[in-house]
């Protein structure tokens, strides 16, 4: 019997990209994990937090803490949502010592998907095959708040048939930024087009990332410009055989 992990699929994957969650569960099960999905899960609260609504963010964060209180390890297909929990919940509950203690306990149990595989499961080769030229987009929160750079690349390097071509510039934001994407739509769109240019420069057919929100922004811009390049979450690539 393998170890138990809980999925926090995020509201975006639940509602818009369910295949990402399924792919993540597939990969974890193949590695011998028993996977559960706490049904009362919804959102981490980041949209409210980033929009300045702290009280509302706290309400949603409390719900998350309750939902996953019993889980031992929680895997998340998003660097941004992971970082909300592990880096920003503490800010939200500065003045509530009891909740803050729960937050600090939670911080140790929540893992972004790629990091979970390389650091906790200790695997780099998940036995995937994906015969394509891809490029990898570093989500800003995964990169700068969680310091994730090599984990997805190590995982991708073991995927049979896959060629990774880095884009230049590699580390520039896609322009999503949550509510920023609609509050400053024209600006957000201009940033996405710069990203699209960097992607086109690689000649890759697929863009891979750890964050569904970046992928939604990038795919939306690619599609609007009439490009046939597709976007995939790392979990979907790793689930391919």
């Amino acid at each position, binding site marked *: 019997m393998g170890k138990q992990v809980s999925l926090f*699929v995020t*509201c975006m994957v*639940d*509602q*818009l*990209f*369910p*295949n990402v*969650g*399924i792919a993540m*569960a597939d990969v974890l099960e193949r590695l011998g994990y028993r996977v559960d*999905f706490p*049904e*009362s*899960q*919804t*959102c981490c*609260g980041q*949209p*409210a*937090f*980033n*929009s*300045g*609504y*702290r*009280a*509302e*963010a706290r*309400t*949603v964060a409390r*719900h998350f803490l309750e939902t996953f209180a019993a889980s031992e390890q929680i895997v998340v297909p998003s660097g941004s949502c992971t970082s909300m929990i592990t880096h*920003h919940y503490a*800010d939200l509950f500065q003045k509530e010592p009891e909740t803050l203690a729960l937050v600090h306990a939670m911080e140790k149990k929540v893992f972004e998907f790629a990091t979970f595989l390389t650091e906790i499961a200790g695997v780099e080769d998940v036995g995937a095959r994906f015969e394509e030229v891809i490029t990898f987009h570093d989500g*800003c*929160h995964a990169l*700068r708040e969680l310091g994730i750079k090599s984990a997805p690349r190590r995982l991708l390097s073991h995927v049979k048939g896959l060629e990774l071509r880095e884009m230049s510039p590699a580390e*520039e*934001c896609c*322009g999503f*930024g*949550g*509510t*920023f*994407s*609609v*509050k*400053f*739509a*024209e*600006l*957000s*769109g*201009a940033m*996405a087009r710069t990203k699209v240019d960097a992607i086109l420069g690689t000649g890759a057919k697929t863009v891979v990332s750890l964050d569904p929100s970046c992928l*939604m922004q990038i795919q*939306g*811009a690619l*599609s*609007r410009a009439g490009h046939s390049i597709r976007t995939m979450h790392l979990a979907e690539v790793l689930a391919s055989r």
Partner: protein
Amino acid sequence: MSVEFDQKIHTTLEDANLQLAIYTATGRLKQKRVEAVAADSLPDYQELRTQANAIKKHAIENLDHYLEEFERNVEARGGKVIYCKDATEVSDFVLDLAKERGSKLIVKSKSMTTEEVDLNERLEHHGLESVETDLGEYILQLAHEKPYHIVAPALHKTRYDVAEIFTRELHVPNETEPEKITLTARAVLREKFLHADIGISGANFLVADSGAVTIIENEGNARLTTTAPKIHIAIAGIEKVIPRAQDLAVFLKLLARSATGQNLSVYASFLSGPRRPGEIDGPEEFYVVLLDNGRTKLLPDRSKRQSLYCIRCGACLNTCPVYRKIGGHSFPWVYSGPIGAIITPQFMGVSHEPGLPFASSLCGACGEVCPVKIDIPKVLLDLRSDVKKSEAREGLNRLELFAFRIFAWVMTHPQAYEIGGKIAASLAPSGEGKWISSVPAFMRIGPLKAWLSVRDLPPSPPKSFRELWRRR
């Protein structure tokens, strides 16, 4: 967000030449910085950042102590320190002094602090001639524009733009070769230096233990400004004070590298007091104006007061994907880019431009390059919360507040969340698996309209994850 802010962003994004100029110039500075702080050229870069942060933190937490020490040491060397609370007090001081000494011509070296208080305009209003001597600033003074960038004020101007400005304002032949343009400026400015009565500079650091003003520059104009005229006035924000001369060993390693990718600037001047007996150069009178202008308002907030650590290197502007698109003049005040987005609302009040802290994707690139480790994204988040609290007090933006209250309720009621998701999915066009570029007219409102204005929308999947999971 104000209409003006929105309009300036739009105008800048529409201007293809300007877009190229901003992106190229910031890209060059960004790359030079990366090379200058790379492990093989500055192995202890991260350690230096940590030290710089610690020194600034200590200085700001003991600001009263170090300002008094600085003042004592300036006066011991024959200089004078003047505390000013706002723009009017600064210009009154300069105007009174100019009147007493019968001064007419002022030369100025680059100073964001004087931009902040509109000093040139105030002096010119009273019949004084105040000439900018930094090349970029001089170009902008001729063009009647504010700086576009903290370090490279004329970053948005191409040499062709500059040639036109010179021809129009100085009546010289249209010359587009940068070296020749510079010689024209030099010829004009040398005359100004020779005849100026007062030199006004800014300050990069105020060194408490030596009563010294430190000025970092590349063109030599600041050294002339501070030594040629009989009177030197340095104008600086109170947050520029650092405890000891030896702290400069940390800051000077970081400043030029972060700003322009140079290991050290061409000139670093340490000025303390007027000319002493036996010395052959230097001013006869030496004043340091210490400006508050809203800075002390930041001190009570333990987290946000880190905004005062800034050494004005401009690295956050060059690396910011937002600044690189909207440029400097879209920002509502003289300070632009990420640092402008955090200090403007604090100096001017959050309602000055409530949209400003939200004009960021929170990508964190600014915090990563900040040589004094200001956590700019965190301060932006704090300011967003401040804006919303202020709006709630004033009864503004009620619809958004209502929307987020609904959001919080839905997200804490999983059944409502699931039903809501299903309703939304049933309304959304399926797109037959393809991404959607338009929706029916009744849905073309608010965030959905904004999203679709520049991007396509993902098709709604037939089943949510939780539905698929239950069938697994």
